[in-house]
């Protein structure tokens, strides 16, 4: 890269800022957790994950953490994705293809509405936490 002018420096900072903010973990209150067990991956969890990353970028959402986890146990309904948004019930979606992932970002994360046709269930109660 050549010598920068003031405008170019500012532009570069803006571009890179978005990228480095993904590394920060403060002030992120939304969790998207993708089940990436063997079953999930076979059913297309990777494509869903990529779609989530791209779509969250498109909407410029800065408060979302995308995590992955192992098999959630609903192997017939993979890929499964758990979405946790404050003030909304924690929700598990099933059969999340890339298109459904897009829909979830748009409706659930942005408009705060559940994507009812793909809601699988609320997560089962964690007996360890509630003893």
């Amino acid at each position, binding site marked *: *890269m*050549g*010598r*920068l*002018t*003031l405008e170019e*420096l*500012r532009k*570069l*900072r803006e571009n*890179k*800022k978005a*990228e*480095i903010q*993904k*590394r920060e*973990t403060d002030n*992120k209150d939304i969790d998207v957790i993708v089940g*990436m*067990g063997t079953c999930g991956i076979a059913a297309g969890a990777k494509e869903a*994950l*990529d779609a989530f*990353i*791209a779509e969250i*970028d498109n909407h410029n959402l800065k408060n979302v*953490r*995308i*995590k*992955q*986890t*192992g098999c959630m146990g609903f192997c017939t309904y993979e890929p499964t994705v758990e979405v946790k948004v404050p003030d909304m019930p924690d929700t598990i979606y099933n059969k999340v293809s890339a298109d459904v992932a897009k829909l979830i970002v748009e409706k659930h994360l942005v408009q705060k509405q559940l994507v009812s046709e793909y809601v699988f269930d609320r997560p089962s109660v964690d007996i360890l936490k509630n003893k």
Partner: protein
Amino acid sequence: MAYRSYILVCGGTGCESSHADKIYQNLKNEIEANQLFAQVQVIKTGCFGFCEQGPIVKILPENTFYVQVKPEDAKELVEEHIVKGRPVQRLIYNPNEDKNRTSLVTEEKDIQFYQKQFRVVLRNCGMIDPEVIEEYIARDGYAALEKVIFDMKPDDVIEELKKSGLRGRGGAGFPTWMKWNFTKNATNSETKYVVCNADEGDPGAYMDRSTLEGDPHSILEAMTIAGFTVGAQKGFIYIRAEYPLAINRLKIAIKQAKEMGLLGENILGSDFSFDIEIRLGAGAFVCGEETALLASIEGKRGMPIPRPPFPATHGLWKKPTVINNVETYANIPMVILKGGDWFSSIGTESSKGTKVFALTGKIKNSGLIEVPMGITLREIIYDIGGGIPGGRKFKAAQSGGPSGGVITEEFLDTPIDYENLAKLGSIMGSGGLIVMDEDDCMLDIAKFYLDFTVDESCGKCAPCRIGGKQLYGILDGISKGNGEIEDIQKLKDISLAMQRASLCGLGQTAPNPVASTLRYFEKEYMEHIVDKKCSAGVCKDLLQFVIHKDKCVGCTVCARKCPVNAISGERKQPHEIDQSACIKCGACYDACKFQAITRG
């Protein structure tokens, strides 16, 4: 395509010496092997500070903090954490070292070591890749420089520094704005210089090295701001050749900044030009003294000259020169960006901002910490440092290295700032903080530091050259059982003469460890002199190990441990130590399960 996961590997010298580089390479290879290179980025960052638990690897976005990682763990980390999304439990921090691993702490923010820290200087360490300028820029890098060049006048910068209350972090604590103002207003020459003192030499101190390794651009940016403010076109970083990693990262940073037009001719298209060169020092402690440092840059032997005139007006080649320490510079971009008022809201009445300490010695969590001024030593040692290992009792903490003194138990609750430390007979210094427990002999500590300063004295002035040698001789005599009561007075007299008459800071402060240990531990000196004993068990000439016949069961463990075969005795019969052969290593004392061996 954006990355979904980031693996941050510590690339500080501490972790690097525990094969962090190999870990980084292995992780990259594993990512490659799993075809994840488009989704997962592996980044080598600066020091995370928690050196005790290094090498450290942090995985985002889960923010999982892995400790004591080994190169062979890379495969498991990638296959389990990255591919399957399952944290690798055995590498997660286990603060209580509990065997069932029920109290693991996964995230950095929950680790007690980080709870009371506040990072201004180390803001980018462990966050960015220090070898990639774009990452620094993304974290508001060079925004302060941009603001200074295009929106501020030199006087505005001085005003902001004045408001901030920033004082020199190299030791003496001189207000930074005053230094800059002197050089700015100097009329004796058009040519002026900016110098960064990176000649960190205190035993046990490594704050400046870690800052340079983790965030080299912050120093370049601050020096350029200094250049703009005082009217200099040239800067020098004086760094010891013993810091190869820091030097390498600085070189990379300078090259990148020049390519992007953030350093060199017409910075960002303005008519301001500034260039920085690195000068390597051979590691002489005296070159941390500013006049000796400047002499060394000029190519002369590193020896101090009397002040005034001060470097601010008559510095490098007799031209006006701003000289600040690494940590001071690292604060500057934040002062400019967030404002002097923000900075002065941190800290105490007289000492603003934060201070980085290298916490070492008899402490559980040794490492690099940054805390607001005004924190107490108790908080640093017990809350951040986790206390003294092995259930031993705290005896004293040494601040300021060979120029500083000890702080004892009764002053643990004193808020730390420049003035309070001076009152206690120590100094802030550059920030080495060495914790000592009951097994440390205070006389031995004083002797250790004097040995260092005698070695490092340049020999130019008599008080330092002769005084130091004499002080050391007296201490050595006392530690060998040849001390006399009059020695105490002699120590005090010579110390005073050195403090008053030495040419530079090295000689003036060299007696501090003696004066300070005498002040708080005179009893221990008397014990050495009168009783010819060292209750800490350090001064070997005063020690004797004796086996008590009534307690010894003749298990032969001590005889087998003794490296010089000085212990004899039949099996199941009491043993005996041959005092003429004993080298007083204490191996028998540590090995005996029946407390049959006494030390005294």
